[in-house]
């Protein structure tokens, strides 16, 4: 190829490349707008804060403070607190070097978790399928399923039975509960409570596969609502909170981690 042809081809190719880049740019502009800031360009720390946040969504800034204080007390360089998020396990520990892979249950760090996430709340209402089964798709993890409310038109039957299946494919229910309708005050529309005692643990959403409820008893059911707790804090005490991030220690180990809470409070100043 002659030189001018080479240059021509290179020119056209670069133009093509630029057109492709411009075409793709609107898709990423929001995410990369901060790239234009020199502070963002010059500091990896700034970039990590930008993408993962002080507290939300992945709690980089807060975790860094906790891990720094934690490592002064815990000599094992591989141990870290249990980290809980409001939606799914983001594994922010991988952001740090060396990565601490071993979860130490005596300290729990909550990331982007409001007070309400630590108390019972509505998981959601189930929808009824053509097969008469009730399905509930849970889009986040719940530690506990505490109870289920069934709104039904009660009739002459004595009992209402509720069965919970982890998925459509499961043939064995993970929980069965029966309510004695005869104790109900009146016949007609009423809300019946199925309380899980003890609460069902590890109520994970499992790849958006819905949980399935079967309600038997010959009643006309209008509504099925599940309640649960996102993060089960039983046995833990919150020793530090900053916005929607917090640190809690296990009751049995509170003496050991006194210094941790002091350091974290000091870091607030």
């Amino acid at each position, binding site marked *: 190829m002659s030189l001018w042809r080479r240059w021509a*081809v*290179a020119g056209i190719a670069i133009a093509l*490349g630029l057109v*492709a880049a411009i075409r793709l740019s609107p898709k990423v502009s929001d995410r990369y707008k901060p790239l234009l800031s020199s502070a963002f360009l*010059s500091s990896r720390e700034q970039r990590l804060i930008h993408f993962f946040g002080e507290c939300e969504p992945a709690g980089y800034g807060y975790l860094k403070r906790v891990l720094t204080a934690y490592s002064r007390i815990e000599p094992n360089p591989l141990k870290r607190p249990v980290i809980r998020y409001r939606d799914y396990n983001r594994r922010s520990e991988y952001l740090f070097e*060396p990565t601490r892979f071993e979860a130490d249950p005596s300290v729990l760090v909550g990331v982007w978790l409001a007070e309400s996430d630590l108390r019972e709340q509505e998981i959601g209402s189930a929808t009824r399928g053509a097969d008469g089964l009730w399905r509930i798709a849970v889009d986040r993890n719940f530690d506990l399923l505490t109870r289920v409310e069934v709104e039904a038109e009660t009739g002459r039957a004595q009992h209402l039975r509720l069965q919970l299946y982890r998925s459509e494919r499961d043939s064995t229910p993970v929980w069965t509960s029966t309510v004695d309708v005869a104790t109900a005050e009146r016949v007609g529309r009423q809300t019946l409570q199925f309380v899980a005692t003890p609460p069902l643990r590890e109520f994970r959403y499992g790849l958006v596969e819905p949980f399935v409820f079967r309600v038997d008893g010959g009643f006309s059911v209008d509504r099925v609502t599940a309640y649960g707790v996102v993060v089960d804090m039983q046995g833990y005490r919150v020793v530090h909170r900053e916005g929607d991030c917090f640190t809690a220690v296990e009751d049995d180990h509170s003496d050991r981690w006194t210094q941790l809470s002091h350091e974290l409070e000091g870091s607030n100043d």
Partner: protein
Amino acid sequence: MIELARIALVASVVALIGPLGVGCLWATALTYRGESEPTLGMNYWLGLMSVGALILLGHGLGISQTLVVLLVGSTSAAGWILCLLRKYKQTRAGLTTVLPLLPLAMAGIGYCVLDPVQMWDSYLIWLARVRLLEQWTPLARFRDLGIIYPEYPYLGSAAWWWTEWTGRVPVESGRVIFLFTYLAFFLAVLARHEQTTSIRVRLLWVFFAYACFSLEIINGYQDGFLMASAGMVALAFLQWEDRGAAWIMPLAAGLSLIKTEGAILSLILVFCWFGSKLSRVPTVQPNRLDRHVLLLGAVGFVSILAIWPWLQLRNGLDPVNVQGAAFRIRSIGIVVSQLDRFPTILRAIGLYYAQRPWITLPFLAAVAVSLVPGERLDRQRRFLLGFVALHLLFVMTIFWLTQEPFEWHLGAALPRLLSQGTLVMFLFVFETATLWWTPIEHMSIARQPVPSPQRFAEVVHTGRAQTKRTF
């Protein structure tokens, strides 16, 4: 800014030096065997695969980190020394080759350095392995540490770790190896057609280099790496043909060390290559050389395929556990009952390709012009077309058999599984376009049947007689 430039430079240099050194060993070995020398792009990929495989093997066998680092470092150094000793001519990439890819390379390096690995499962699977290699945590402990899919292989992560660790750069910078692999593929493709002067072919090449690119290739997930590697294996078959079977077959099996489905891709590649010329089967048996080459290749293929399951067994992992419970099928009845999924699968595949007309339309056009009556489909394109078809069948089978929630699995995995065959589709388009647009006197690769035994020997022993090294 200076710090950022330093990281970009160090990561890029380290990402190139190590693999290219090991690649030099490949080049020396191939030349010694009388084969044609791999081009720079192919060299890089051969080196990178070897570096990753060495680390994975060393780590899986419980060899100390220092020893493995020394082994990889000295192998690379030996490669460089050998290249210098045999006065390996430093190949130069032409202006028209380098300049068009420069914006992509610069933007890609910038992305790898600037954008931390995102905290999504798909990326964390591989980042976790890089972090575990930093600490040289034994493979036997992977299962206890709560990482996602501990049963997955990690050749790509191993090479990624090598880059970030030796360069002492932030972990995300190590992903430049995936960018370089992608670019290496395109360099290798062009080098195969070095004598092609057609501007149309060159422009097509540039167009596809940009069109096939996506951030998914360099953001840490391994499908892009598998896509480029499957393309490289296909390219190696095209360049070295049957004579290269002794080493290309084991190399193809190396795909199984990148991702689990790499094993199936390698099987399809090997099957399609040999299936693309069944008429050669009767000549293999009486020909001692052919027989030995094939036997050697087959033994190497099976041995490399067996490496990961063997390492799993050795480290207390279950090799039968492919992807959790996704493919644990309890009865034939389930398989039969899931046949009604096919219309949905076909629709999803159709939608995927409809959204990517830049590859679909050229590919369909290439198929159309290749299959018109009177047109003879050569072995290379039969091989590539066969791969595309069987790969599609493989993807359909996955979704037919999956025990994960069907709709979810289809939405989550179909695009990335289909993407693994994209570069082979591009190769088919490019091979066809080259045939159409290149004047016969400029063609560097003999394709037509050759009548005389002497010419036949030249074609079989392609080597220096048919192809020249450019870069």
